[in-house]
């Protein structure tokens, strides 16, 4: 990190520290970090995410004091112990369970923000890749956390997801057996998931540290996508963005509190109030909402292995994005055509999420009934087909639209610097 600080150790102890472990200096550098002065509220989600991680770790450690991993005890220790007997257990679990959802809401907004403003483009590719790693770790953590209460959805979700890996030839079966520690999802699986669920958030915290380090080398991107040119383009992080982030966290907390206190189970599933039963599958298995788009992609493909590959491929697209975008202009503010394709992409992701929650053979437009047009294996008016169309757009967005548009689109005039966006834009037009 380059030093951006006017920090002078004032007291003897600070001077002593400064020549041994300059930790106060590091803090000062972070607080005074020159930050573009035009960041909007889409930039507050980084702070919100840090807040979410801290919340999950604190509430999780408390839950672990009362939770008992084990097929016979887990469900009771949650539904009776934590929810009824432990003082404020209901509140702490409510924060943790809904906190996971809030965490994903924030991370999805944060990622769409990065895509819209081209924050993954040079010199921030590594910053983006570290973010993708955090996202993967979050998914693994949330998946294993959801298994812990050992309800019907916990159990069958675990079974279906671990079986996905079994689709891979040769290595698939040994890997699932290794994950299960048995012939099926069972006590050993639950115990190791608890161990890993405890570990992964700390790994996330470590990758977050790298993510922020990688942010502080090139500095923030900003809504114009034009790099900082001079000191006039920036303000110190504190107090400007500590206050802005703090306000955003406050607003976010209102939404969070609405879920915790008024709709604590809205994002959960009724079947998870039934203890796990390895002999009976719930009639309609759905993953947590934040996995639904990927679940829809999985089900869109009629072949098991190809479905699994498409699902993992959907995430791999994110990792490849910095090298798929060929545009010289970062921010879509100056890319009118890309903006439209991007908005469609966001809608397509929501459609995929919606499809993931439906039964594949149900009609999308019930009034229409069956169209009678049976393509491959399903009627055209079905969620399978809607998922297929949406999946096609999802992949086309990364593999065709993004690279081609970058080369062909004529961007609007881009400002010379953050400080004079409008004037520079006008000047460029006259040239």
């Amino acid at each position, binding site marked *: 990190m380059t030093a951006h600080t006017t920090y002078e150790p004032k007291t003897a102890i600070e001077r002593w520290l400064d020549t041994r472990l300059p930790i106060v200096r590091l803090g000062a550098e972070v607080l005074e970090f020159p930050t573009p002065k035009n960041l909007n509220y889409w930039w507050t989600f980084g702070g919100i995410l840090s807040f979410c991680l801290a919340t999950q770790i604190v509430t999780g450690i408390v839950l672990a004091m009362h939770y008992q991993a084990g097929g016979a005890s887990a469900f009771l220790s949650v539904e009776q112990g934590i929810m009824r007997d432990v003082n404020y257990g209901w509140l702490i679990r409510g924060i943790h369970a809904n906190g996971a959802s809030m965490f994903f809401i924030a991370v999805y907004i944060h990622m769409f923000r990065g895509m819209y403003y081209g924050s993954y483009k040079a010199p921030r590719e590594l910053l983006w890749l570290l973010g993708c790693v955090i996202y993967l770790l979050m998914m693994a953590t949330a998946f294993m956390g959801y298994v812990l209460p050992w309800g019907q959805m916990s159990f*069958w979700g675990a*079974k*279906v997801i671990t*079986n*996905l890996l079994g689709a891979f030839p040769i290595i698939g079966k040994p890997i699932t*057996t*290794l*994950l*299960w*520690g*048995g*012939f*099926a999802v*069972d006590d*050993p699986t639950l115990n*190791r998931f608890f161990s890993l669920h405890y570990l992964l958030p700390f790994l996330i915290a470590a990758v977050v540290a790298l993510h922020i380090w990688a942010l502080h080398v090139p500095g923030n991107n900003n809504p114009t996508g034009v790099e900082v040119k001079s000191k006039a383009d920036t303000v110190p992080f504190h107090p400007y963005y500590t206050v802005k982030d703090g306000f955003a966290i406050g607003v976010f907390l209102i939404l969070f509190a609405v879920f915790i206190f008024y709709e604590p189970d809205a994002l959960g599933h009724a079947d998870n109030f039934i203890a796990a039963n*390895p*002999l*009976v*599958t*719930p*009639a*309609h*298995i759905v993953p947590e909402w934040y996995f639904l788009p990927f679940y829809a992609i999985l*089900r869109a493909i*009629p*072949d*098991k*292995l190809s*479905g699994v590959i498409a699902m993992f491929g959907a995430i791999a697209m994110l990792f490849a994005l910095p090298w798929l975008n060929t545009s010289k202009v970062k921010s879509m503010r100056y890319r009118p055509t890309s903006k439209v394709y991007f908005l469609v992409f966001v809608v397509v992701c929501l459609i995929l999420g919606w499809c993931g929650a439906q039964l*594949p*053979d149900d009609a999308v437009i019930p009034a229409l009934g069956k169209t009678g047009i049976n393509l491959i*294996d399903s009627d055209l008016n079905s969620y399978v087909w809607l998922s297929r169309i949406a999946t096609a757009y999802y992949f086309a967005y990364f593999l065709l639209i993004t690279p081609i548009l970058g080369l062909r689109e004529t961007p609007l005039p881009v400002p010379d610097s953050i400080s004079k966006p409008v004037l520079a834009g006008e000047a460029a037009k006259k040239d």
Partner: protein
Amino acid sequence: MGASRASPVSLKAGRIEGELKVAESLADSASNPGHAGDDPSRRDFIHIVAAAAAVGGAAAVAWPLIDQMNPAADTLALASVEFDLSKVELGQEVTIAWRKQPLFIRHRTPKEIAEAVAGDHADLKDPQTDAERVKAGHAEWLILLGSCTHLGCVPLFGQGEYGGWFCPCHGSVYDTSGRIRKGPAPLNLAVPEYAFLNDKTVKIG
């Protein structure tokens, strides 16, 4: 890397030479620092041996850490069960737990057997005749792992258009022989290893 510089032959020669030289090298290392380690092939050899030992050591430690995740001895010991078939009426299905997984024991009606045999010549995704899926002389007993070969849900009997099982998770349909007929599952419902101890008792596993 240094290793690529040394061919096996020069490595060997270098080692012998190196051994001969070592005494004198040590002798002048004090007056001529840096010289003792300058023989490149000898250095390479030591690097390779050291690295190989470290990799071997790391692998030897990693394996127990990985293998501990595989099924433990007590889990493996759950392997077999005996079941009294007289408890299952004609046309009934009983689900028992075997190795913590559902096992279907189905007493098939003559109609179901006839349908299953008729299905032998259909266009099957995982071709198998009905006779291959039951024990000779016991066609009325169909014993299956009740775990959908797609992603492991428990299929329900009596639903789906082939008179057999239907999986509620992603809509796989199995016939009265437990063969996959429609949907995403790639394979027939698995038939576990079992044997008839007598006409009324089977040992599974």
